[in-house]
């Protein structure tokens, strides 16, 4: 039942923004009974308690669309960001080229040269009071 609902929701892109508030719009008429039984709060809490014991805790368990939210995300229960020590390389595979391919446009060139110039100017400006303050200490 849940897989069918997932496929229906994926197909209805136009109503994607409002599906959470109109659950009965895209469900076929025949499944309305199934909606009613699985929408009961007792069943929802059982299912959500079980899934939260496996992996991620869901904060929106009390919404009336709890039956829809019980589906597993395609990535499973893995956390979004894996922590990795700085010493190991980030990827042992070749990356797809981006910089050698994109044609340098005026907007992008302008933007990065503006940033580089701003950083250099900031460094130059702040070096004057720094040199004055520490030059007295470290000269003699």
């Amino acid at each position: 039942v849940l897989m069918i609902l997932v496929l229906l929701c994926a197909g209805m892109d136009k109503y994607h923004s409002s599906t959470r508030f109109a659950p009965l719009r895209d469900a076929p008429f025949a499944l309305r009974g199934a909606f009613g039984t699985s929408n009961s709060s007792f069943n929802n809490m059982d299912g959500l308690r079980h899934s939260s014991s496996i992996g991620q805790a869901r904060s929106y368990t009390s919404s009336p669309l709890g039956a829809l939210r019980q589906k597993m995300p395609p990535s499973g229960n893995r956390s979004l960001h894996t922590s990795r020590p700085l010493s190991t390389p980030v990827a042992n595979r070749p990356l797809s080229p981006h910089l050698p391919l994109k044609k340098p446009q005026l907007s992008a060139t302008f933007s990065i040269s503006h940033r580089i110039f701003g950083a250099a100017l900031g460094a130059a400006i702040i070096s004057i009071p720094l040199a004055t303050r520490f030059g007295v200490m470290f000269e003699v």
Partner: protein
Amino acid sequence: MGIGEHFEGVKQHWARNFAFLDYFKKVYGRDQPLPKWSDADVEEFIASDPVYGPQLKALRESRKFALGGALAGAAHLGGVAFKYSKSPHGVVLATGFGALTGAVLGSEVAEHWYELYKMDKQGANLRFIYWWEDKVSGVLL
């Protein structure tokens, strides 16, 4: 022409504004550079001059505050960046900026610890330079 006088006035105005750079000319702007002095020479000057010796000594002590502050700041900010970010350039930049801020904070602590605001720091340095000039020219002569 009047315009030439005007530009002479402009140059004089900026020469007055940047007159503090004359202090650096005493060491760096010489025709022939002074022979490099060692810490022992500085210690000798500190022992010999009763007024400016202690001032120079306090100035040199304040270096330790600045370096300690730089180390603490670099370790702290670099550690925070290392903990929360995995970008190596971010960690390097954070360590550098932490060193800078820590050095300023350490020198400010030293400024109040040794009461450096009461003394003429450039004057103390210049007194040593003049003493060193006399000593070197005396040895050569």
